[in-house]
């Protein structure tokens, strides 16, 4: 026993790294080969996101802001997929923007993955449009409050926004009843709340999908300034299962396409890593108490 404690005390952190690698890679291989995922029970914040989108009537414009980059894609791409999936299924007019320079490419990828693949009847420029990236962080948001076309004068393809059918009737950002942001940091959900939601006087609702780091910081805003919140991959998985179950054809037992299970797949490695962390915390404390006891004994 005491030998074990000594090993724990002097444990090289590289052993921890190795354990982490195994506990993440193992489940990935297992799920990748068997295709099994863990079940999810949605929490209220994830249900709220689903409800807010479902409450809109077909044809309503929604603003989707992709404020992230590929580095946080592991957490946020599944959310982007499911959010666009639900919006497309609901028949909403999707206006995509990005306040992160690398966002527009992620928008295109998501459009390709969801809309072009499964909703080919939706027309670019009519049912959805990618307005690309604008630099300026929150100052872009402020411009949007007064003049949307000034903030985003041309689409990613270079078409003047005045000629885009999907933007008909959009003068200011508050013409969108719902704002969906996918956010990885600054500028992101917090800035949207600070600069757009708080100055719109409750006209716009906002739901957001964000990284695990941001989630705690956004809770103070829910549910008054923020109407729905998907926190990290767990939120993504909950929401994904909600969307999948509501969109699945009632009679068929056809499998959900793999691309709509990305978040639920990632919950497997998540479980492995979390159990490892918990084990580490317990082991760390065993070592701590053992050491303290031996010190106490030594002094007495």
């Amino acid at each position, binding site marked *: 026993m005491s030998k074990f404690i000594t090993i724990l005390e002097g*444990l090289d*952190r590289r052993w*921890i*790294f190795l*354990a*982490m*690698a195994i506990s*993440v890679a193992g489940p990935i291989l297992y799920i990748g080969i068997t295709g099994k995922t*863990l*079940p999810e*029970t949605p*929490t*209220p*914040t994830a249900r709220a996101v689903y409800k807010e989108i479902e409450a809109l009537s077909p044809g309503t414009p929604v603003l989707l802001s992709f404020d992230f*980059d*590929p*580095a*946080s*894609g*592991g957490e946020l791409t599944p959310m982007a997929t499911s959010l666009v999936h639900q919006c497309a299924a609901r028949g909403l007019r999707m206006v995509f923007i990005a306040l992160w320079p690398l966002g527009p*490419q992620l928008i295109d990828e998501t459009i390709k993955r969801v809309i072009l693949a499964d909703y080919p009847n939706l027309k670019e420029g009519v049912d959805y449009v990618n307005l690309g990236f604008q*630099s*300026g*962080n*929150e*100052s872009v948001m*402020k*411009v949007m409050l*007064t003049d949307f076309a000034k903030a985003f004068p041309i689409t*990613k*393809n*270079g*078409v003047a926004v005045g000629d885009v059918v999907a933007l008909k009737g959009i003068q200011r950002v508050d013409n969108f009843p719902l704002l969906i942001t996918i956010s990885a940091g600054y500028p992101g959900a917090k800035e949207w709340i600070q600069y757009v939601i708080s100055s719109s006087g409750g006209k716009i609702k906002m739901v957001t999908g964000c990284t695990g780091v941001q*989630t*705690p*910081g956004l*809770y*103070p805003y*829910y549910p008054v300034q923020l109407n729905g919140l998907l926190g*990290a991959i*767990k939120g993504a998985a909950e929401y994904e299962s909600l969307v999948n179950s509501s969109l699945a054809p009632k009679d068929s037992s056809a499998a959900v396409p793999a691309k709509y299970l990305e978040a639920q797949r990632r*919950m497997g490695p*998540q*479980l492995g*890593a*979390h*159990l*490892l*962390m*918990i084990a*580490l*915390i317990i*082991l*760390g*404390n065993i*070592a*701590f*108490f053992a050491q303290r006891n031996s010190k106490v004994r030594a002094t007495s």
Partner: protein
Amino acid sequence: MAEGSARIMKRLVPMWIAIIAGFVMLLSAFFPITESLGETVGEIFNVVAAIAFVLGAGSLAKVNLAKISRRDQGWGYAAITLICFAITLVVGLGKIGVPQSTQFPLLGWSGEKDAEGSIFGWIYEFALVPITSTMFALLAFYVASAAFRAFRAKNLEAILLLSTAFIVLLGRTFAGVVLTGWLPDWASGLRLENLSVYIMQVFNTAGNRAIIIGIALGVTATSLRILLGVDRSWMGSGD
């Protein structure tokens, strides 16, 4: 330049530029005519920051060239940095390999810089993305080692820190559902997944709210110290 006038140009003028610019921006938010001044200044800032890249690039080139010419240890890496920098800059600014845009095929420069087929896009996809996202992924390992070392029940504060992390960790995975899912409905509030939501909504909200309020006051005071010329340490803490 005489000693006095140098002091004026190098110390007093900048200080007054900061003071005047600051108060103008502060007040501009309250008058309809100047309300959008903040946005304009935001654009100006972006342009200045983009121009400043010349300085950054200069510093990067200078430091690495010096390393190479001195044959410092690892000068080969400095050379790689410079070569990668030059190649990316050239293919990006020159839009090399970018196909025409489908909207305006006659305009040579209208294609997207990172379009499919461009070298810039290739660099982005196969060098920038893998390296940055793997660097980011290192955090999964560091989180584990930090938790192992720091989450020890040394005192009451540490116990609170680690037990909250513990509950949230468990509650946010399937493990929490399995461990406490048997609790009957009337006690469902004690289920781990609900407990973690409760921690978020009460304790986390309270803590973060106080931090946010404190920061707001801190920002106001810091800004005021700068705008009143009380804190001049950004231009050296001297006279």
